[in-house]
């Protein structure tokens, strides 16, 4: 800045320079604050802090060499302007900084030209003093105007920034809410899915139970029917047996009578031979009739409700009887089915106090399952496979063991845990009630105070072990 009294050349003046340094410091402060240099350009900020140093150096330099010039402060200020311009260029990405650059540029240019002309062409300045003055005034106004513009820009930027920050915050809040809502929806969905699954499985279970109950009801009525039929068959069968028996007696009597009669030896022999055949036939009729009777008795016993009275029972006989009953029952349904029946009875097993019908029911169940298992494995068509069902008894200290073993399909581990549960069945719907083994388990454990255990190897076979206290 040139003042009229400073225009006189070659006159050393500290005061103007000492006056310029605080101005520079002041401006530096303003710029620092305005542009927030500590954050935006830390290195430039430190430089701005030391803006007085070159001023003092200039003063010292001038004092030392007794420089008779008033242009020193002009140099210093130009230096300060250039520093500012450098800073503004550095921060050109910040819009207010660009505006400040625009504000300062004409004035700095003016200062530069004035200084230059002051050095090289003093006369020229004097001649165009007015022009320079108006240029100076114009550039000062320009500077102030753009400084204001920069200030407004800064403010609007700050407002923008604030708005953007608020928007960001709002967005973040919404995002958090969204996440929370999504989490809640997911939770609710999972809960609903669980409920739906539970309901579905309950429904399936109910349907299965219903089907099984219908089946059980059918079986019960079939049982009654069976008992009725058995009774109806029993009476004619009794006649068959009795007449056959009495016919044997009659044959015997006839034989005695024939012996008394006088006849040719050959005729008598022939008569006696016919009599013997007749008698033999009657025996056969009686024998097979008895066989039919025992089946009918089995049917009756099976359908009869437990009397709840324990009777001394021959377990070997009972096991044998029911093994045959089960086998023939299955053969009646499937003529092609064939299996080897093995019995290993321990003669040391004496009569044991049991509920014969109930125990019979258990054995029938186990045998039926065994036959079913070997039948299933047979269907796989393994070469050389011989379906075998084995029943064995053994007298142990304080207890009797009945083992029913088959070489069928075996029971997988996960199924084995459930086989004694009521209504659990692996058979197709309608073929099994899922009550057989659970009933058996109850009969053995609750009814007899014994145990019913199972051992099985998948693909090899299964063994059920009944232990009864004896």
């Amino acid at each position, binding site marked *: 800045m040139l003042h009229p009294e400073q225009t006189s050349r070659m006159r050393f003046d500290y005061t103007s320079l000492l006056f310029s340094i605080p101005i520079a410091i002041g401006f530096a402060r303003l710029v620092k604050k305005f542009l927030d240099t500590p954050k935006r350009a830390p290195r430039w900020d430190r430089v701005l802090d030391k803006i007085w140093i070159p001023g003092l150096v200039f003063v010292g330099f001038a004092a030392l060499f007794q420089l008779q010039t008033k242009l020193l402060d002009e140099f210093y200020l130009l230096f300060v302007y250039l520093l500012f311009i450098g800073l503004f260029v550095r921060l050109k990405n910040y819009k207010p900084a660009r505006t400040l650059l625009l504000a300062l540029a004409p004035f700095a240019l003016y200062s530069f030209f004035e200084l230059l002309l002051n050095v090289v062409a003093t006369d020229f300045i004097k001649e165009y003093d007015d022009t320079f003055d108006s240029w100076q005034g114009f550039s000062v106004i320009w500077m102030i105007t753009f400084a204001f513009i920069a200030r407004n820009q800064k403010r609007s930027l700050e407002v923008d920034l604030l708005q953007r920050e608020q928007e960001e915050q709002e967005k973040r809040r919404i995002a958090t809410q969204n996440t929370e809502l999504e989490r809640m929806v997911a939770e609710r969905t999972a809960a609903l899915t669980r409920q739906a699954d539970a309901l579905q499985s309950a429904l399936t279970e109910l349907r299965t139970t219903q089907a099984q109950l219908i089946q059980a009801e059918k079986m019960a009525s079939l049982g009654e029917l069976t008992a009725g039929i058995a*009774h109806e068959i*029993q*009476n004619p*069968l*009794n*006649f068959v*047996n*009795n*007449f056959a*028996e*009495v016919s044997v*007696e*009659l044959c015997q*009597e006839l034989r005695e009578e024939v012996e008394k009669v006088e006849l040719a030896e050959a005729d008598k022999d022939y008569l006696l031979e016919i009599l013997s055949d007749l008698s033999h036939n009657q025996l056969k009729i009686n024998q097979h009739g008895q066989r039919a*009777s025992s089946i009918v008795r089995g049917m009756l016993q099976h359908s009869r409700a437990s*009397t709840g009275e324990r009777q001394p029972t021959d377990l070997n006989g009972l096991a044998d009887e029911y093994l045959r009953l089960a086998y023939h029952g299955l053969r009646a349904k499937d003529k092609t089915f064939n299996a080897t029946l093995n019995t290993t009875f321990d003669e040391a097993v004496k009569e044991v106090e049991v509920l014969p019908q109930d125990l019979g029911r258990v054995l029938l169940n186990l045998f039926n399952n065994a036959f079913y298992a070997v039948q299933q494995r047979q269907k796989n068509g393994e070469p050389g496979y011989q379906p075998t069902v084995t029943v064995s008894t053994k007298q142990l200290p304080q207890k009797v063991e009945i083992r029913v073993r088959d070489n069928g399909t075996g029971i997988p581990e996960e199924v084995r845990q459930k086989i004694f549960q009521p209504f659990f069945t692996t058979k197709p719907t309608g073929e099994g009630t899922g009550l057989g083994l659970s009933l058996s388990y109850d009969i053995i454990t609750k009814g007899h105070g014994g145990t019913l255990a199972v051992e099985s190897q998948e693909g090899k076979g299964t063994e059920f072990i009944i232990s009864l206290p004896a």
Partner: protein
Amino acid sequence: MKILVVDDEVDVRVLFEQRFRREIRSGEFSFSFAYSGEEALNYLHEHVSEVVLILSDINMPGMSGLELLRHIREEYPGPPVPPTPQVMMITAYGDDTSRQQAMQLGANDFLTKPVDFAALKSKLISLENHEN
């Protein structure tokens, strides 16, 4: 000894006649047959003093064996006059309730079908010896 057999099965007659052929021939036993409870009661009204033993089936159409038993015990309460016959019940249902019912009504014995004729014969013989 006169025995009345009551059963709805007609073939019972043939069976008994053959089973006890020798005893009938020797005059040891004589059998009469009735095919229903009603028929049995009618027969008794005419021949009460003759009949020593009645063998009756329980399950018969019309009057059941147990009803027949009740009638007999009501009509012929026993000694001294008129004499009361022995009654044995025969049934295919050998359960305890039927047996107890029969015994309560005054049956002398209770047999289950199929009848063991050897055992029946020995019972009859011991009864006859007792009579004499």
